[in-house]
């Protein structure tokens, strides 16, 4: 929120791909996700109260905010799982309602404990992420290889034939990420992909994501802590009570302490410096 914390990467992106002349209410042609004035209710309770969010091609955008601030709901309006009561949602320049090209999107839902009532192997779960690339669900050699490759990317290839019920929470999460990667999507939408994933695996996944981004994949992810992903993130959008509170360079310090509402001292601040007071609590 402070121009001085703008990361080098964010600067280069904004100077390259966003002409200064673009006014805020016209959508740049290269926007992959565009939410304008989006409102949504869940059980007659307003959860999103007019959100604007644009993700351009090749960008990595982090969606931050406290529990219940509407991050998952915002993400689910993008993929059409929550009805929008006002505003517009566009995917790849097409109104969400008319969007059919689902193979371009890989989705990682927020950790669900709901397993099916029948055992299924890791490969079987990840294969369902590949369906959108097949014709009538017939798997060819290339499809099976894509599934194997996706498992390799998250480091779960050695568990390919195991029952998903026999995995730990973090391993399960990595399987869900592999399922999203299996379709080789252009846009990855991930709701807290790192929840419960240990630091070493987070770094593996960060590297995976980096390779994806280098191959021109666009990423929108919900996070609580930037963690090893921090260097990848071009822009952060902070939600609070269903409104966008901040849209700009990612907070420098790690995790929630960087969010508004917290005092923090930058690690590079001179010793004895006053904490920067940004919050209501100070």
């Amino acid at each position, binding site marked *: 929120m402070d121009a001085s914390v703008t990361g080098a990467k964010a600067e280069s992106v904004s100077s390259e791909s966003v002409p200064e002349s673009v006014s805020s209410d016209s959508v740049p042609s290269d926007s992959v996700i565009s939410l304008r004035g989006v409102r949504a209710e869940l059980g007659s309770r307003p959860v999103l109260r007019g959100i604007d969010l644009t993700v351009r091609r090749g960008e990595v955008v982090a969606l931050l905010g406290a529990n219940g601030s509407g991050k998952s709901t915002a993400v689910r309006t993008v993929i059409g799982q929550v009805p929008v009561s006002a505003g517009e949602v566009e995917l790849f320049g097409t109104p969400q309602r008319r969007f059919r090209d689902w193979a371009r999107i890989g989705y990682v839902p927020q950790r669900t404990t709901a397993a099916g009532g029948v055992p299924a192997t890791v490969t*079987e779960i990840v294969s369902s992420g590949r369906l959108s690339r*097949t014709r009538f669900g017939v798997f060819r050699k290339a499809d099976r290889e894509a599934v194997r490759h996706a498992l390799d990317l998250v480091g779960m290839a050695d568990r390919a034939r195991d029952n998903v019920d026999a995995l730990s929470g973090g391993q399960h999460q990595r399987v869900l990420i592999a399922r999203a990667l299996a379709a080789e999507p252009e846009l990855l939408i991930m709701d807290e992909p790192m929840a419960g994933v240990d630091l070493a695996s987070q770094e593996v996944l960060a590297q995976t994501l980096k390779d994806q981004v280098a191959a021109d994949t666009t990423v929108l992810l919900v996070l609580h802590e930037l963690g090893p992903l921090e260097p990848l993130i071009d822009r952060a959008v902070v939600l609070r009570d269903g409104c966008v509170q901040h849209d700009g360079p990612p907070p420098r310090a790690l995790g929630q302490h960087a969010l508004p509402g917290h005092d923090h001292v930058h690690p590079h601040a001179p010793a004895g410096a006053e904490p920067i007071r940004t919050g209501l609590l100070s």
Partner: protein
Amino acid sequence: MDFLNYAFMQRALLAAVLVGITAPAVGIYLVQRRQALMGDGIGHVAMTGVGLGFLLSWSPVWMATAISVLGAVTMELIRWYGRTRGDIALAMLFYGGMAGGVMFINLAPGGSNANLTSYLFGSLSTVSESDVTAICLLAAFVVVVTLGLRRQLFAVSQDEEFARVTGLPVRALNLLTAITAAVTVTVAMRVVGLLLVSALMVVPVAAAQQLSRSFAATFAIAVAIGVTVTIGGTVTSYYQDVPPGATIVLLTIAAFIALSVLAAPLARRRARALAAAQPAGDPAECAIPATRAAGDEVGV
């Protein structure tokens, strides 16, 4: 094997095999989406179809197919729209279907509850030539759907929201599952009966799960169990003069118990085999460090 010389037994065995294949093949998706009792609900609704068949002198099998497909589609619609009062609506559908069946069959000329009994509990000896034709056609439909669309149905039954984001026609697939379940109920009606159908959809799947780690293996084992118990039950009922439906269902439950008892030692053996295959550098027990490392020396 003298029973093979009788035409009625040939028909009965053919019907039994088809039921043994189709009921678990559909049931596995119902179990996966935790709607194990859907088959039971459809069975109740199908009774109205049987009653109408008698009343209008049409084939009870085809009439039951039509009504149970209608009922299954209604159940699916209730699941979409009637979230809060859904279970009440379903209860009315089930018991309305059952009451309708009893009412129509008693209105039919010369009809009585006795006619209904053979549909409720199955009656192999009365399976007619035209019944077998109907059962073959319906079973073919069920097999084509459950095998041909197995990846799609698996995805939808495993994680509906994700399936929607991969662009699968989730509503159409849910409807198709419901319709296929309804068709299966009528396939199985003559063999195990409407009230016992659900057991053959659910119990072989539960039994197969005791042994399997994958969906594909569960599917194969469940169908194998289904075919074994339906043939076994049919032959037993020929020799012992016991009702086939009840025999088949009791055999299925026996298979479930036997596999549950077997599962534990099998799993232990598998674990031992796995441990033996591990390289020697990976001991089965933790090595206890001589001295505890200080907290900040331990890498996490």
